[in-house]
C-alpha cells in the first residue's frame, strides 16, 4: 500500500491569481459596490442604510417612475428595431456576400463593416449633419429624385426621432451580424450544398431549408449580443440628441437616464444613490434577458459539426 499523499497543487490558484485580481478590481468590486450603494442614502449629511427605500422611490415616485418606464419602453422599441431591421438585413447581406456570383465581395464586406469601427461621436455627428434641415444633404438628395416633399426633420420630430436614431444605430452596427452570419455560412461544407442541389433544392429554398437552419445558432448569439448592446446603449443618443434624449424625452433610454441620474445634467443634481439603484435595476434587466436566452433558447439550438 502506498500512502495517499494529499498534495495541494499551488500552481493552479497561483496562475489564476492575476486574472482574478484584475477581473475583481475592475468588474466584480465595482458591481458589488454599486449594488451595495443602492441600499444607502444621505440623511443629515451622513450616509445611512435605508434598505429598499431607494427602489420604492424609483418605482413609486411619479417623477422617477415615469421617466424610468418611458426610458424602458423606448429601449424596448430601440431593441425591437434592431431585431427587425439590423439582424434580418445582416443575414440578407451575408447571404448575398457568400454568393459566388457576386464580384467585389471584399470591397462590399469592408464598406459595410467600416461604420462599426467608427466612433459613435463621428457617426452621430455625421448623421446629424446629413439629416439637418438647414445644411444637411438629405433634403438636397431627395430633391434630386423629386421627393423633397417627403423630407422631414426626422431627428427633431417626436414621432420619428426614436425610429430615426434606431436606424442610425442599425446603419452603424449592421456589419457585425453580417460578419458573424457570413462566417457561419462559409462554414457550411460545399458538399452539403451540392447534395442539396442534387436533391433539387436551389435558390431560395436552399437558403430556407438548408442554410438558415444551420446558421440558427449564430443568429441566437447575435440576438443576445444585440440585446445586451441595446440595453447598455448610451453613446449614440448622447452624441446625436444630447443627454436629455430629446425631443421631449422621446429618445431617452436607460443609458441616458442613468447618466442624468448619476452624474446630473444641467439643473438636475447628480445622485449617487438613485443612480446606483437605477444601475442595479438595469443590471437585473439584462441579467434576466441573458438568463432567459441561455436557459430557454440556447439549449434548444443545436450546434452542428460537419
Amino acid at each position: 500500500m502506498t500512502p495517499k499523499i494529499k498534495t495541494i497543487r499551488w500552481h493552479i490558484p497561483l496562475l489564476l491569481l492575476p486574472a482574478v485580481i484584475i477581473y475583481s478590481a475592475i468588474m466584480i468590486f465595482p458591481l458589488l459596490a454599486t449594488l451595495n450603494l443602492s441600499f444607502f442614502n444621505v440623511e443629515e449629511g451622513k450616509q445611512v442604510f435605508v434598505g429598499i427605500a431607494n427602489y420604492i422611490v424609483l418605482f413609486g415616485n411619479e417623477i422617477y417612475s415615469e421617466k424610468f418606464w418611458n426610458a424602458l419602453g423606448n429601449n424596448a422599441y430601440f431593441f425591437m428595431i434592431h431585431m427587425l431591421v439590423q439582424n434580418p438585413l445582416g443575414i440578407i447581406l451575408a447571404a448575398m456576400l457568400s454568393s459566388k456570383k457576386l464580384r467585389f465581395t471584399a470591397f462590399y464586406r469592408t464598406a459595410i463593416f467600416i461604420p462599426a469601427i467608427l466612433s459613435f461621436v463621428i457617426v452621430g455627428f455625421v448623421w446629424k449633419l446629413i439629416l439637418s434641415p438647414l445644411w444637411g444633404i438629405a433634403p438636397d438628395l431627395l430633391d434630386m429624385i423629386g421627393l423633397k416633399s417627403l423630407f422631414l426633420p426626422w431627428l427633431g420630430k417626436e414621432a420619428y426621432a426614436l425610429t430615426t436614431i434606431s436606424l442610425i444605430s442599425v446603419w452603424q452596427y449592421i456589419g457585425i451580424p453580417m460578419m458573424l452570419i457570413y462566417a457561419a455560412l462559409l462554414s457550411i461544407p460545399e458538399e452539403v450544398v451540392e447534395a442539396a442541389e442534387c436533391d433539387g433544392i436551389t435558390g431560395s429554398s436552399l437558403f430556407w431549408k438548408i442554410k438558415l437552419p444551420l446558421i440558427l445558432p449564430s443568429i441566437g448569439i447575435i440576438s443576445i449580443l444585440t440585446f445586451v448592446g441595446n440595453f447598455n446603449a448610451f453613446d449614440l443618443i448622447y452624441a446625436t440628441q444630447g443627454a436629455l434624449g430629446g425631443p421631449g424625452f422621446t429618445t431617452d433610454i436607460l443609458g441616458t437616464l442613468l447618466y442624468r441620474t448619476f452624474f446630473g445634467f444641467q439643473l438636475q443634481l447628480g445622485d449617487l444613490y438613485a443612480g446606483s439603484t437605477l444601475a442595479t435595476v438595469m443590471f437585473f434587466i439584462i441579467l434576466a434577458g441573458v438568463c432567459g436566452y441561455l436557459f430557454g433558447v440556447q439549449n434548444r439550438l443545436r450546434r452542428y459539426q460537419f
Partner: protein
Amino acid sequence: MGTLKLKNISKSFGNVEVLRDISLEVADGEFVIFVGPSGCGKSTLLRIIAGLEDATKGEVIIDGQMVNHLGAADRGISMVFQSYALYPHMTVEANMGLGLKQAKTPKAEIKARVTKAANMLELTPLLNRRPAELSGGQRQRVAIGRSIVREPKIFLFDEPLSNLDAALRVNTRIEIANLHNSLNSSMIYVTHDQVEAMTLADKIVVLHDGKIEQIGHPIELYNHPCNMFVAGFIGSPKMNFFDADKLDVKNAITVGVRPEHIKIDAKQGDYECEITYVEHLGSDSNLYLTHPKLGAFTVRVFGQVAYARGETLHASLLKESMHKFDEHENVITDI
C-alpha cells in the same frame, strides 16, 4: 433504363485543362469505375455528369437525351459524396426524403420509398436519429439510402469509402456490390483505390492527366495493359519496369514484369540479388530485391517466407508474363 454517353468532354479551369476530349459510353446496368491518381480529373468528370460542373466543351447524354442544360436534380442521377454530405439538422428519415419532398411527391409514397430503402440498408432503427448521432459507416449508408430513395437512372459515387476505416470499407464495398446486384441500375464510381476498382467494376476507366488511358474489364486491364501508366497503376505492389537491353529483350525499350511473375529460389536462378526489405503480410510476402545490373525490384510470393534482409536470393523472370513497351510507353503486342 440508365445509359450514359459522353461526347468529347473537355473542361478547363482558366488556363488549366483538367479534362481533354473524353468520350465514353455506359450501358444500362453497368458498374463503371473511374480510377486514377489524384488530380487526374476523375472527380471533375463525375461532377460534370452530375451537373454540378459545366463542361467547357462536349455533350453529356443520359438515356439518349442531351442534358447539358439541365440542373443536377433534373438529370435523373443521384450522388453519394465522400464526406457523406448529410443535412446535419435533419433526421435520417428527413435526409432521405428531402429530395422527393422538394419534388412534391405524395407523402405516402415518400414514406414507402424511405421505408424500403431503410430496410435494404438496415437503417430502420436509425430513422429518427440525426447524422451527429451516427457512426461513419452508418452515415455513409444514409447517404447511399438518400440516393436509392430518388430511384435515379444512374448512381454516382464520389470516393464513398475514403472516409471509412479499413474494416468498414470492406463491408461497405460488399454492400455496394450487393446493392448493384439487387437494383440493377447503372453506377459510376470514382476512386483512387485500385482494390475497389478491381473488385466492384464491370468496366474500369483509367484516367491520367485528364485523358482516358484505357477502358476495360478489370482482368483485361490487369492482363493486357495498353501502356506503362495502366500497367503501373493496376496491380499491387506495382509492376516492375526494366530497361529492355539489360534483360537482352529485343524490339522493346522497357519491359514490365509483375511482382507475382518473378520466381525466387535460394540456390539457383537467372539473377543473384540481395534482399533489402521483406514485408510479411501473412497470406503473402513482398520481397524488395536489388540486383547490380537490374536495380531494385519487388517480388510477391504467396504464403510466408523465411528470408531476411541482407540475404542473397536468386530471381527468375517469367518470360511469358512479360509486358513489352515501346519508346512512347505503349505496349508492343508481338504475339
